[in-house]
């Protein structure tokens, strides 16, 4: 490559860094539409994709913030299960629906707080260890309080978040069956709020600074431990909301809820362009990462591709995404 070509190439990097991932989604959608012209872009299938990704996107968003601080949270899948069990038990105990709904995010909040305090107060050498521990603890506690059996049947009000439908009859005319899932609206609102939080508030800026150089953040007078506790607590809170959505979707709390979903969350974050080294990544990227995983699974299901091939494909995409991250760092960092 001669000098000129190289510099145009480098100039294109920021563009691809920002919009490359959206381009990828566009390509995926086009290809799947061509392969499945009747089904893929139908209202029913598109809302289905959004309903499927809505609860997973909460986990991805939380894990994203943690990864920006150069940390990791392996416990979010277990937090989903524990908050779901908490909700189910509150529901079974006959508490009013608005209290029951608050239980899931509250349990998630407390789990996240537990992670954050553990990592900072116990001075764990890496968040991996604390959250690996709580991955077992939270699911264990969830099984202890439920007796290890599913609890089924929630009031309709509780299920609104995960299963609610906003009918479009008034726009599309009488008898139209199209609707927008409540969970999609919730997902958009929450992503927007966290976009504001991360890009337009001091704490958001400090989260990125900690990921870039914790020493610099400390030297700037930032209480790094306090910010980390906030980040892990918010991550747990979001996982709790994920549990609430899942309660609506499945109408059941079951021992395997959220099993391995922490890995899907991490995958979505990495595919979305966040750097595992911390300090890098965007909320839009996470959304894109979640959508890519969702569209891929949905598309492969429509094509009757075996779930085993889906695993192989998703794994390959993760490795490719990180390899691109490595290349980008090489090119954009002058040293």
């Amino acid at each position, binding site marked *: 490559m001669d000098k000129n070509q190289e510099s145009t190439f480098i100039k294109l990097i920021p563009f691809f860094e920002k919009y490359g991932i959206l381009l990828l989604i566009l390509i995926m959608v086009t290809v799947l539409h061509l392969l499945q012209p009747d089904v893929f872009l139908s209202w029913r299938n598109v809302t289905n994709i959004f309903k499927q990704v809505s609860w997973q996107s909460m986990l991805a968003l939380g894990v994203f913030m943690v990864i920006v601080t150069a940390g990791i949270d392996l416990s979010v899948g277990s937090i989903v299960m524990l908050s779901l069990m908490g909700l189910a038990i509150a529901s079974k105990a006959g508490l009013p629906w608005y209290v029951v709904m608050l239980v899931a995010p509250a349990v998630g909040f407390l789990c996240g707080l537990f992670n954050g305090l553990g990592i900072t107060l116990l001075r764990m050498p890496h968040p991996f260890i604390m959250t690996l521990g709580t991955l077992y603890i939270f699911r264990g506690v969830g099984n202890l309080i439920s007796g290890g059996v599913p609890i089924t049947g929630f009031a309709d009000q509780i299920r609104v978040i995960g299963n609610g439908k906003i009918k479009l009859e008034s726009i599309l005319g009488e008898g139209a069956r199209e609707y927008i899932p409540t969970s999609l609206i919730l997902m958009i609102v929450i992503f927007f709020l966290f976009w504001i939080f991360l890009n337009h508030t*001091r704490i958001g*800026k400090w989260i990125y600074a900690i990921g*870039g150089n914790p020493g610099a953040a400390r030297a*700037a007078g930032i209480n790094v431990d306090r910010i980390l506790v906030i980040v892990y607590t918010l991550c747990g809170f979001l996982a709790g909301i994920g549990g609430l959505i899942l309660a609506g979707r499945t109408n059941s709390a079951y021992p395997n809820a959220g099993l391995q979903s922490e890995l899907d969350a991490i995958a979505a974050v990495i595919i979305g362009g966040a750097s595992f080294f911390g300090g890098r990544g965007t909320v839009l990227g996470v959304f894109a990462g979640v959508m890519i995983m969702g569209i891929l699974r949905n598309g492969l299901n429509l094509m009757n591709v075996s779930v085993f091939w889906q695993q192989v494909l998703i794994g390959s995409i993760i490795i490719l995404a990180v390899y691109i991250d490595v290349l980008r760092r090489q090119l*954009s960092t002058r040293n």
Partner: protein
Amino acid sequence: MNSDIVLEAKSVSKFFGTITALDNVNLKITKGEVLGVVGDNGAGKSTLMKVLSGLYKPSEGSLYFSGDKVILNSPRDSQNLGLEMVYQDLALAGNLPIGDNIFLGREPIKKIGPFNFLDHKKRKKLTEKHLEKLKINVQSADQKVEELSGGQRQAVAIARATAFNAKIVIMDEPTAALAVKEVGKVLDLILNLKNLGVSVIVISHRMDDIFTVCDRVMALFQGTNFAESMLKDTSRNEVIGWIMGKKD
């Protein structure tokens, strides 16, 4: 007594258990003066600077800012009095733009209702103004620090230290990690600060640095004041002798 003295340490001692890191050390610096502090490893330079910045409390002795006796409980206290440290490892976040680094922890904000939001426009404007004042050349205030050269990073670190009207800046080996051609730029920057009336304490092993920018040089040896001189009255060889504990 000179009324221009902005910072003075009087008979400062610092003990760590049975180890005496500083023994009755005196230091003073006047407005717009560049003071070089030299000494071998373990001579007490870093300990003295940490006492001045409030990271360590002196075991004995006291500090005076502009003639007033002060007790520093943390670096925040010394910052509020107008003293800033530029650390050897630079303490910058490479993933953030120049402006974000300069204002990290002290970001300009605007209120919307009960909430505080970052004022991106104001930060950008203040950054550009400040860089211009210090004659620091970069492509844009939005450039990420990791894209800068070592000298530019050092310049950003110095810009960060002086963004809030610092009166005294302490620099620990400001040219240690730099390519030769970039050293000059950083030294120019120190002279710029001097012209703006900022007092600078430079810790350095490099005689070239000391003899280019300093007005006065003091040597520490085994935790004590060993020698001190106006720069024009001494020579490189003499100062090197002081570092090794030799006096004629």
